[in-house]
Structures are given as C-alpha cells and as structure tokens.
C-alpha cells in the first residue's frame, strides 16, 4: 500500500473516517465539526462522507454534549466528541473529571466508556491567555483518562485509530500549530508520510525521534518539531541530542526515558505547558526515583511556560513559550 504526505489535520480526519467506515457505532459530535469540518480541520470531509446523523454539530453546551457522549458510550456507541479549545474545559470539567474519568472505577470495572475527547491545544499565534494553553498535565493528573498528544501526521493517524478502538475514555490533544492549516504558520516537520491503509500506534510507547549520546531531550507535541530544528543546529557543533517524543502521557513510557538518561546522563524537558506541578516535574521525579539506574552529570533542565498566563503581545508570548533558540541554548548550557 502506498503512502503520501498529509498534514496532521488530514491524517486525523482520515483516521476517523476509516474507523467510521469500519464501525457503525463511531460517530462525531461537537461545535462546528460537521459543516465547518472542525475549526482546526480535525473532522474535515466527514460530513460529506457520512452525513449529519453521524457527524453532528452541537449547540454551545459543552456540559450537555460531552455528558451526552459519556451517556452514549455507556450504551455501547463510540463517540468522538470535540472540545473546541482545551481552554474551554472550565465549562464542562465536571463531566470529564468526575464522570468520564471515574465511572469505570466507581463501577468496579463494569461500566465501559469507549469514547474519544478531541481538543485543540497550544499557542504561538497570539491567541492570548484563554486560547493558547496546553493543559494536558491537568488531565494526565486525573486518574481514569488516557492522554494522547501527537507531534506529527503519521503518529496522529495511528494514535487516533488506536484511541477510537480503546474501550476507555481517551483525551486526544492536537496542537493547532502543527495541524498544517492553510491559515496558521506551522512547523513543516509535522506534515509527513502517512500510509493509506489503516494502522495503529500503541499507547505507552515513546518514540525516539533521533538518537544521541549527549543530552536526553524529552518532549511532545509542537515542541518536538522545535526540538528537531534545535538538534540539527546543535549537531553542527558536535552536540548530539537524543529526542524522545512521549506521544502519550497516560500511559507513560517511563522506561524509554530512564534508559535514555542512563545513556546520556543529561536531561532536558521541553514542554509548552506551565512549568510548575506538571509534566516537566513528573519526568524529573521519575528520574529522581531511579538514581540507582541513572547518573546525572548535572541538574535537570526544564523548559516550560513560567507559571504566567500566556500574554497576547508578540514579544511577550515569544518570551514565555519555549522557542527553538531556548532549547538550543539550554542544551549548550548543559554541556
């Protein structure tokens, strides 16, 4: 079977379409997912293929339609429900946090909720504090949710198909700045070769994007693409960075991280979420818990948004969201 270059948005909608063809129980709902194809293209072309019964535009009622997705999943259907911006979770968090995430456990494993909650994350295009967050850490911190964060089209399609087939609630975070939209500059590394056929990418398996022996760079989402650019520059000066793309936070591939840090002795975490009480702290803790296996040559370095709401003004936004240059200078400082 052949492969061709797809944007991440096209890869996601292709994954959804193939599963919808295969399984009549899969359907899509959310704001502007049908006619518009999703504000960020995640459900492009689905309405034409499958019609309004299976691709449903909802009113602006996140609590109702996300709760409805939970209720439909409890009945055995497989909804894919979109929360337009992750930043909007505030208006429906109870349905996610106290119900979607917990019903399986509270029922002693009897209730199954085979749903996918997709949502757009990320900044870098000046959409300010309420429309630029990542927040996957918040949800990863909630027992009962699987957390998927693709960095490129190939992974995005495979992870989406895996997510739809999983009988558990999966939150799928796609970064707007790597969807390959025609109206937002994006990191072209996220557009890559995608097989035409259906395939899955496993959860709990980080991807070693690039091997290196000097520094372990643990990252995800759009930050992966920035890391690749920074690593290319660093390689010119003989600094070889090993880039680990986490791909899923729950389940998390701790072993790949530990093995890599064992090899390099240096850990840098590049994360677009807030610094404190989140992913970068979690990765640091994992290493700290395994000091019998790793020898750190220096302190762990955390690149993340410095615990401030994301500012609008372009120079300010650039200052708080880690840039390619920030990754590069951080790694250099570790050598």
């Amino acid at each position: 079977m052949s492969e061709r270059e797809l944007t991440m948005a096209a890869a996601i909608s292709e994954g959804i379409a193939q599963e919808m063809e295969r399984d009549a129980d899969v359907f899509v709902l959310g704001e502007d997912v049908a006619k518009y194809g999703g504000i960020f293209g995640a459900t492009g072309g689905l309405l034409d293929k499958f019609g309004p019964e299976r691709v449903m535009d909802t009113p602006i009622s996140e609590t109702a339609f996300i709760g409805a997705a939970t209720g439909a999943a409890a009945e055995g259907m497989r909804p894919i429900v979109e929360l337009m911006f992750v930043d909007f979770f505030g208006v429906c968090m109870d349905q996610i946090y106290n119900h979607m995430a917990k019903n399986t456990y509270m029922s002693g494993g009897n209730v199954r909720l085979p749903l996918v909650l997709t949502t757009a994350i990320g900044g870098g295009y000046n959409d300010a504090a309420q429309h630029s967050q990542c927040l996957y850490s918040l949800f990863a911190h909630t027992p009962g949710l699987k957390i998927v964060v693709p960095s490129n089209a190939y992974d995005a399609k495979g992870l989406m198909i895996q997510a739809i087939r999983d009988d558990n609630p999966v939150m799928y975070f796609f970064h707007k700045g790597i969807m390959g939209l025609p109206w937002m500059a994006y990191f072209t590394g996220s557009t890559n070769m995608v097989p035409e056929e259906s395939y899955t990418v496993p959860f709990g398996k980080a991807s070693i994007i690039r091997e290196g022996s000097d520094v372990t760079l643990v990252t995800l989402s759009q930050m992966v693409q920035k890391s690749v650019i920074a690593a290319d520059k660093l390689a010119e000066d003989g600094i070889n960075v090993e880039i680990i793309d986490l791909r899923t936070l729950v389940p998390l591939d701790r072993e790949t991280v530990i093995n890599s840090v064992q090899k390099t002795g240096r850990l840098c975490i590049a994360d677009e979420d807030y610094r404190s009480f989140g992913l970068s702290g979690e990765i640091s803790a994992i290493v700290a818990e395994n000091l019998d296996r790793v020898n750190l040559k220096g302190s762990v370095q955390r690149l993340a948004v410095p615990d401030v709401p994301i500012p609008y003004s372009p120079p300010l936004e650039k200052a708080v969201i880690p840039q390619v240059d920030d990754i590069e200078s951080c790694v250099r400082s570790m050598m």
Partner: protein
Amino acid sequence: MEAGKEHMLWMYEQMLVIREFEETMANIYLEGKLPPEIQEGLAFDIGSGLVPGEMHLAAGQEPVAVGTCVHLNDNDTVTGTHRPHHFAIAKGIPLKNLAAEMFGKVSGLGRGKGGHMHLFSVDKKFSCSGIIGAGMPPACGAALVSKKKGKDWVAVTFFGEGAANQGSFHESLNLAALWKLPVVFICEDNKYAISVTREESTAIANNADRAAGYGIEGVRVEQNDALEVYEVMGEAVSRARRGGGPSLIEVSTDRYLGHFQGDAEAYRPQGEVDQLRKNDPIDRLQKQLQDQGMSDTEDQQIRQGASEAVGEAYEFARNSDYPAASEAEMHVFV
C-alpha cells in the same frame, strides 16, 4: 392512563420495600458512629461505623420512583442523584448488591468502589452521581443512542428542584428539545436543597413552567402520590417512546429525613415532618388498594415479603467481604 390493579400492587410493594430499606438504613448508619476512641466533644464520627461517609435517604419520595419505573423496562435508562435508592430499587437493582455496595463490600454493584452515591448497573441501565445536575447530560446521550438505533427506548433522569438552577439542566433541556430526544426530565421538588428552600433559590414558582422556555411539555404534579405520578409519567414516557420528544415533569414530594443522615435539620420548622407523615403516600395507596379489594391477608403477605427482602439484603451486606487492598489500584481502565 390510569393504573390497573396489577400496577398498583407493584407500586405498593415497591414503596414498602423502599421505605423499609431507607428507614432500616437510617438505623444501621448509626452503628459504630460513636466509637470508644472518639475525641472529646464529638457527637458523631462520620468516618466511622459500618456504613461510613455520607448517607442521603429518600423516605417519603417513593411515589416519584415507583410511578416512573412502573413504565420502564430493562432497555430504558435511568440516571440520578446522590439520593438514589428509591429509583435504584424501583428500576430493579438487586437489593443485596445495592446494600453490599453501600457497605463497601466486594459483592456490591461496584465492588465497593462507588458507595451509595455512585451506583452503576449496566444490566438495569442505572447510574447516579453525587454531582448536582450531572445525570441529565448522560440521559440525553442514552436517548440519543435510542434514536440513532431506531429503538423506542427511553431515558429518564431524576434531579431535585435545586438542580433545576444548575447549568446542566438548561443545556440538557435545550439539547433534548433541539434533537427531539426520548428523555423525560423528572424534578423531585422536596422543597429543600439541603437547607435552602425553593423560594430562596428559584426565581419562579414552578419548574414545570421552565419547559415552555425550551418548547417542550411541562407538567407539575402537586400531590406526593403514586397514582398521580403514574398518570403523568405514563404520558411522558409514552410521548418519548413514540418519537414525541422530551418532557419536563415536576413532582411535589416530601423528604422525611434530613438532607444527609446526621443533619440536625435546624432549618426545618418544628413538627413539619410529622405533618408530612400524616399524608403518607403508602397509606394512601393502601386505602386505594383496599377499595379495589385487596384483602388484609394479601396486604400482610406483601408487607412481610418486603420486610424479608430488606432483611436478607442487609444480612447479605453484613456477611459479605471487603475487597482486598490490592483492588484499590484495579479497574481504572478496562
């Protein structure tokens, strides 16, 4: 549609079971709440005893549950609240597993993981939540599935008059009306949202009037009466089954016990509950059945049967094992 004798008998029996279950729990709940090692000055340790934690009992509210569930079958979904036992029982959840769950035993509905506010039965399509208003959206989801599959299955969601001010109520009514979902919203107006009365919380006098704001049928049942609920819910469920869309029903009912067990109910006027109990819906249905020819023997049989069933359920719960500690980290995912 009026209830025939068979349905009247079913509702009567169910109400007796529910009342006995709830009032027995009111006593069991107190077992061990005053452990010897308790701190000075404490009247009660909520975390101690056979049934620790919060307990919300529905004694008095039986008519809403039986008048509704009499019209439902195993294909129909019920979602509800932190005060769920009457509906759980009327929906057909086995009493033993219900009691065991309330005791945190492994033979409980959720292997002891949920407790009394988080009861789940996949077989009986029943779920409830401790979050106000949270049952309404999932009921819309179940109704959506019924519609998608071309079935005549109905979803019923029960909630209190306090919940009718929660955002989820308004969102769910609009969504159900817009998509013409086979869901019935049933509001139990027991006059108190913990200590706050309806007059103190709600801008209008009658939640059934809110239905007009969503373009759907709204009916208020003024009497805490099984036959009246039967009639109104019969219409509403029938409407949903034939594709006529959602309805909002409000029933004026009576909460005989506190919001939670241990609630001193200082906010309640003296003697109010005694007054309410004079209008006991079970006594009323008993009279109505006697008028229909129910003999004393029959009545005794039903009452005894109810008592035995409740007794057996609590015996089962007492004798069941707790889950092993290792189960704490199981069942997060399937």
